[in-house]
């Protein structure tokens, strides 16, 4: 097992290097660069930059060098100094920008994820056990609607309702008076209030998917001969349900857990923009739009890293959960 993990980590290195290069290349692909988008922004406010000024700025930022040279300089700094470069937009090191949003992103993502599993798994089990009952049709219908409704639309509807009923659209994660206030019980309470809509909106789409997956898995498992064996042994229906089908149905779901790592890191982008949430998603979106290349590159690189890492975690989780795979490890 240990050997396997080491081997997987070593294999991940060339993958990450390759991804980093592709990421850097793709960021360079759109016409123009940060300087031209900066100039465009300046000209919109009536301040025209001359060609000489633009060239000067490019030279300062190192943007006039060939792409591979820029790439190697970026990589060298990351590996030697842990320095991911400078965000032009924020006028700060990239890491400082990411750190600034990390805490709230994690809070929103993790709470959403917990909501998602806590709601979806019981409903999935219920709809499978009571297949074709009124309850099954109700929840299945609801989850189809959940799957088909775009998140941002739901966000807008909930904001409207919240405004209509409570006189507050609950934009952002804090009320204005708490944004810069030091942490206190009231601030936490305010945060929780503001989290309701994002958690429902972001959580619901994944929840609908997960309900369908869980229901399908459970239906498969409920008809397996080992359930009949358990029944023939004299176990009660509840004992059977939790020990056999549910346990087996959870495997594929828990094993995909690792893949959500990168979405935990960014949070939901479009919904976050609509709801004005101060989390990573919108920051990354702006970085990509504004050709803030080191910030965008770092985002994409970290997401790629987390995906590779998440896949490894998934595999380890599955090996831990599934005795069959576990023995294969023991054997090797």
């Amino acid at each position, binding site marked *: 097992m240990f050997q396997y993990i080491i081997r997987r980590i070593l294999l991940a290195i060339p993958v990450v290097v390759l991804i980093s290069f592709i990421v850097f290349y793709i960021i360079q692909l759109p016409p123009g660069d940060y300087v031209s988008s900066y100039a465009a922004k300046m000209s919109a406010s009536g301040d025209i930059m001359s060609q000489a000024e633009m060239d000067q700025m490019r030279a300062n930022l190192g943007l006039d060098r060939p792409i591979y040279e820029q790439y190697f300089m970026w990589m060298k700094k990351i590996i030697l100094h842990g320095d991911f470069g400078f965000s032009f937009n924020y006028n700060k090191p990239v890491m400082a920008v990411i750190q600034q949003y990390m805490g709230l992103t994690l809070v929103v993502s993790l709470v959403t994820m917990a909501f998602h599993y806590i709601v979806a798994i019981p409903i999935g089990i219920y709809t499978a056990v009571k297949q074709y009952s009124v309850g099954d049709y109700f929840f299945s219908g609801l989850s189809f609607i959940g799957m088909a409704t775009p998140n941002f639309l739901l966000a807008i509807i909930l904001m409207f309702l919240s405004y209509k009923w409570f006189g507050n659209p609950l934009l952002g994660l804090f009320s204005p008076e708490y944004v810069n206030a030091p942490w206190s019980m009231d601030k936490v309470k305010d945060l929780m209030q503001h989290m309701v809509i994002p958690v429902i909106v972001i959580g619901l789409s994944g929840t609908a998917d997960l309900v369908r997956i869980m229901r399908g898995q459970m239906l498969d498992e409920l008809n397996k001969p*080992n359930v009949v*064996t358990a029944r023939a042994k004299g176990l009660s229906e509840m004992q059977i349900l939790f020990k056999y089908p549910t346990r087996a149905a959870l495997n594929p779901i828990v094993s995909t857990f690792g893949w959500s790592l990168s979405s935990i890191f960014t949070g939901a982008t479009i919904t976050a923009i609509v709801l004005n949430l101060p989390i990573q998603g919108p920051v990354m979106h702006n970085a990509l739009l504004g050709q803030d290349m080191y910030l965008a590159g770092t985002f994409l690189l970290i997401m790629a890293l987390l995906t590779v890492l998440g896949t490894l975690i998934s595999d380890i989780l599955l090996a831990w959960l599934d005795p069959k795979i576990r023995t294969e490890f023991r054997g090797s």
Partner: protein
Amino acid sequence: MATQAAHKEQPLLSVQDLKIKIQMESGIMNAVDGVDFNIYKGKTLGLVGESGCGKSLTSRSIISINPKECETSGTITYNSESESALNGLNLLSLKPTGKQIRSIRGRKISMIFQEPMTAFSPMYTIGNQIMEAIRTHQTKDKKEAKRIALEMLSKVGISDQAKRFDQYPHEFSGGMRQRAMISMALSCNPEILIADEPTTALDVTIQAQVLELMKSLQAEFGMAILLVTHDLGIIAEMCDEVAVMYLGKIVEQAPVKEIFNNPKHPYTKGLLRSMPRLGGNKSKRLDSIEGSVPMPINMPPMCGFYDRCKDRIEGVCNAQSAPKITISDEHTVRCFLYADQREGEVQ
């Protein structure tokens, strides 16, 4: 009933007029249509028939583990020897998820299945799954349960039990898994063992070993066996009495020697002819029964075997369902060909 007359003792289990209906899109399927048989202590009854004849549904209805879609009627009377509280109980009257039937399942009547591969859950060790049966019915004590489980594993011929106990089903071979399944079924010393095609998924040498094992355990524990199979070879090897099922009905029932030496029903004869024989002419093709089993949906009253029968009587066999005819004390057949032999037994 004729077969009962031969046995002086009370049957352990008596199935009477068992009917199982399944609601299908195209109508109601009479999967099991009026089946009667008795199971006696220490004896083996073979239930033989081709796929889809209702033999599995029949066997599973005894402990009410058929799917919800099955509508079951009739009576299944259980006369427990060891527990007077369960004497004369109609198992079909119990709630399928209720406490009472659950206390019988696995303790008084247990069952082994065709696919030892999938009948165990791949998620838990063999030991865990065997102990579960023991801890449900016998003792709550974990150590004691483990002791019993290990003892049972050694009884079914699994060596190195302590190591095997902690292994998962996929680490067992097919034959070993079926042995483990048998040890689980017998762990609470049941009075009846229902074996639903116990050796179908195993290869021939292992088949013989498992059958031999079942026989020796029957001699040791004295349980009755209901053996469901499509294999006449296994019937000859294992059974005291045979019930031949076709299309949800028992078409012939007799002691095993009688079935092989003096088959009456054209279907039984066909089954016997389709068996390869040692010393038979190798260049000759095996006989087969022409045609296939019809679906018992919206069937008019007639003999279910009519379309495939070589001896059918037009206007008789397809006009009403065949009566049960008594050939001898222990031999009954459902066929018009023998209707004149015993009068007044038409049912």
